[in-house]
């Protein structure tokens, strides 16, 4: 039967199932197809720490949230219009976020007695009236998949594994998208297993055709392409953008990339991505532990390379002593922290912004390190590139802060070309001059020269002991130590002169409330502030990328508003630093649930403070 086509400006879909159901893959495919179509998109994967948590349990639910539209999309969406649940547990976990009158697509096979028991249901939610206010599409996906592949010769396990393709095909029909991109993906993924390739494509098409011919729903949806800024786009995940930004910095600076790291969630994908690009001269070293990772980077930096390591909070804690060494040596290196919930092992697969104070202060002695943070998946590219530039041009370790939310999230990226990237100029001393080489002699920015092993006449020794000004010889002189501590501090402060001033990113330039944010909260704060401004409130939004040093004008901006509020996925870390540095009575909005803020949470907080 023919179906009515309804126009939609934006849609949020949550795919949910067991962590072995291929949910992340299904979500990613649906995202890529929509992005290629021209929608603006934002995604948020949410999966358990266990690789294969017990099947059918609440703990084992893996989710993928996708927000796409013909309008500007800045967040993965607070609540969803459509919930795809492969079993009862997946339904239970995500149902509270389904909008009133939303659509739920259920795999009925995942609601059998066993599934219901595992999800703690006495009565199936399909039968107890819970779904009365929603549109419910019930499909026995397992059965349909098995029928489709009855002649495939594949075993039951392999057949069931392609169930996700049925759902994907179904949604492609529902949202009026073609199958081409996913077909190409399947062909590449299973290029060496033709039986699996054919099976997956067959099931994908079966899902599509089933949606077309069955009477499970009556209207299809059309989400037109978004009016994005002119240019070329691709879809990109945060960790991938981080890896590309690092390679770009290596290419532009002319320094080969050395990447030493130890596997840790959620940072490992940076290693995986970099390891693919050996033809860029990239050397990736999977070290025996976090300490060896940062130390190998120090060795490589001493050797004249762009040394980079990445980890998450617990790993960064282990690197602390070596970061102090990097600081006193004054060698360029980049340390990426893809933050996750803490303390200790905490919530490895969930997001948090609770390592800002660690980045700022987490070393012995006075050891200031510049910090740059990313605000969205694609922004990881720009932010990490800037972090590398500062490291190389200012001869210092730099910490780049990302988090699990943007690391695994994705969005369209208006990618740059090589010639549009800022130059990065290393301060390498190429040959011996008239005077003896002084390793800690500085220029007006207080940056020393980098002399590399292999350069005749510049042989020198550096180390972790306090060094005499200019010569770098070991010195225990009290005045010299005071001087050197101050010089290293001043050197980092001076970086503020070579970074952009802080803009007001959204909303009014001065007024009642300034929302000051950093990191992955950008999208949600932007959406909230825009909404408030539309409602006639005098609210501005400044999003701080450079956290150490701050842009020179940040203090002035804070004074232009009656109230400053700082939303963070921590207990108030930027808040502490801002209050300390600028003596403003800023207020925190703090959430530590392992999941990002919703727009309403920010709006409510703004309105609450407007009343004060």
């Amino acid at each position, binding site marked *: 039967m023919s179906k009515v086509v309804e126009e939609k400006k934006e849609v949020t879909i949550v795919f949910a199932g067991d962590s072995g159901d291929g949910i992340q893959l299904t979500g990613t495919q649906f995202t890529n197809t929509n992005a290629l179509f021209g929608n603006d998109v934002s995604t948020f994967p949410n999966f358990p720490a266990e690789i294969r948590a017990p099947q059918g349990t609440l703990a084992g639910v893996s989710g993928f949230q996708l927000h796409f539209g013909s309008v500007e999309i800045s967040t993965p969406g607070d609540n969803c219009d459509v919930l795809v649940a492969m079993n009862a547990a997946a339904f239970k976990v995500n149902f509270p976020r389904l909008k009133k009158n939303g659509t739920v697509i259920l795999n009925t096979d995942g609601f059998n007695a066993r599934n219901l028991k595992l999800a703690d249901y006495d009565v199936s939610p399909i039968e107890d009236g819970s779904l009365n206010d929603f549109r419910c599409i019930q499909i026995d996906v397992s059965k349909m998949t098995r029928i489709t592949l009855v002649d495939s010769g594949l075993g039951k396990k392999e057949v069931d594994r392609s169930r996700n393709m049925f759902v994907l095909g179904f949604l492609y029909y529902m949202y009026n998208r073609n199958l081409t991109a996913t077909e190409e993906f399947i062909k590449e993924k299973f290029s060496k297993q033709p039986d699996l390739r054919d099976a997956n494509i067959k099931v994908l098409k079966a899902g599509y055709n089933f949606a077309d011919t069955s009477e499970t729903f009556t209207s299809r949806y059309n989400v037109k392409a978004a009016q994005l800024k002119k240019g070329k786009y*691709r879809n990109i995940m945060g960790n991938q953008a981080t890896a*590309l930004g690092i390679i770009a910095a290596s*290419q532009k600076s002319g320094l080969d990339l050395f990447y030493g790291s130890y596997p840790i969630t959620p940072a490992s994908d940076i290693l995986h991505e970099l390891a693919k690009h*050996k033809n860029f001269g990239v050397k990736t070293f999977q*070290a025996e532990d976090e300490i060896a990772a940062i130390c190998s980077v120090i*060795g490589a930096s001493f050797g004249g390379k762009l040394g980079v390591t990445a980890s998450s909070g617990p790993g960064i804690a282990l690197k602390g002593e*070596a970061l102090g060494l990097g600081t006193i040596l004054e060698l360029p290196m980049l340390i990426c922290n893809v933050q996750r919930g803490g303390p200790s092992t905490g919530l490895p697969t969930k997001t948090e912004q609770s390592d800002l104070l660690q980045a700022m202060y987490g070393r012995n002695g006075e050891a200031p390190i510049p910090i740059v943070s990313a605000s969205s998946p694609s922004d990881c590219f720009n932010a990490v590139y800037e972090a590398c530039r500062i490291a190389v041009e200012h001869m210092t370790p730099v910490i780049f802060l990302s988090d699990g939310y943007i690391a695994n999230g994705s969005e369209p990226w208006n990618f740059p070309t090589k010639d549009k990237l800022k130059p990065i100029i290393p301060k390498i001393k190429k040959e011996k001059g008239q005077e003896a080489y002084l390793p800690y002699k500085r220029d007006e920015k207080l940056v020393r020269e980098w002399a590399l092993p292999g350069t005749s006449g510049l042989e020198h020794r550096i180390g972790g002991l306090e060094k005499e000004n200019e010569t770098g010889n070991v010195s225990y002189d009290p005045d010299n130590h005071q001087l050197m501590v101050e010089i290293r501090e001043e050197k980092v402060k001076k970086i503020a002169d070579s970074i952009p001033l802080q803009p007001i990113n959204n909303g009014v330039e001065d007024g009642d409330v300034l929302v000051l944010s950093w990191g992955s909260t950008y999208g949600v704060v932007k959406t909230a502030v825009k909404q408030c401004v539309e409602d006639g409130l005098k609210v501005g939004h400044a999003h701080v990328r450079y956290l150490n040093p701050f842009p020179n004008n940040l203090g002035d901006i804070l004074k232009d508003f009656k109230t400053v509020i700082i939303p963070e996925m921590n207990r108030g870390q930027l808040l502490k630093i801002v209050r300390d540095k600028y003596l403003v009575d800023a207020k925190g909005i703090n959430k530590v649930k392992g999941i990002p803020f919703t727009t309403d949470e920010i709006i409510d907080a703004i309105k609450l403070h407007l009343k004060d």
Partner: protein
Amino acid sequence: MAEQLVYTAKDFATDQDVRWCPGCGDYSILKQVQSIMPELGRSKEDIVFISGIGCSSRFPYYMDTYGMHSIHGRATAIASGLKISRPELSVWVITGDGDALSIGGNHLIHMIRRNFDLNVLLFNNEIYGLTKGQYSPTSPEGKITKSTPVGSIDHPFNPLKLCLGADSTFIARTMDRDPKHQREILLKGSKHIGTSIIEIYQNCNVFNDGAFEVYTDKATKDDEVLMLEHGQPLVFGKEDDKGIRLVGSEPTVVSLNEVSKNDLWIHNEHDKFKAQLLTSFFDDPSVEGHLPRPFGVFYSEDRFRYEELMESQIKEAVEKKGVGNLDLLLSGSNVWEVA
């Protein structure tokens, strides 16, 4: 500047005052290392010394090459990163028993299995000197120190056995008080392509004086030291009158009055099984019937180096995919255009 390859030991001394305690064994090692440098055939600027923390780790400050005095236990990891990124450099790691075997134990074994072409000088004085006299992971059981007033209850590491256990491709032992032997072993180690581990018995005359005296004192050394030479029988004793013979799998001391030299254990540097037995010659010299302590090259083997394989993987990637093109990398394969 023209390349100057003809150096003397003096060219490797810096203007810094050497600050070890008077009488420290480290002086002798510094002298021998400086003396073999001209024989490496390498330009001074291509040589790098990396150390951790401890008395011995001051070493790089006294070598007029490139150098880094780093943090405790991590010289091995720093040298690994340097060697991967600059395979052409001659990299030397200076470490001690605390630095290499206690706080840096993990990096040591992983460096060894990867077999970077590095030279590691492990100064073993069986004590923590810089922190003023606590027992170390090589101190013998019962050792009385500041932190073990009634004797250590730690069983010590046998460093060379540990290294061989991590599949070391070169292990040797020498001592500070035998400069000639030290020089010979340093040269052999420097020529080995792969990680060469040289354990140097080094006397700490302040906190552990005489720890190795039985191996250096004229009165005892001949009966306590077993000098290993490739292709030669294991002979020792004042009159070269004793030898080691394998009885089954058990090394046994025999008198050369009773057994012919031809029937002794002939040392073969490339025999991994016998090398394992040799590293087990680790008896307490005060125990009756103990085996002598071997010095020299225990084992050497040619095995691929990590940094070489990494270089060849990169070369292969370039051959296969061409030199990386940043613009193509940034665009990826799924691009759409908004007009």
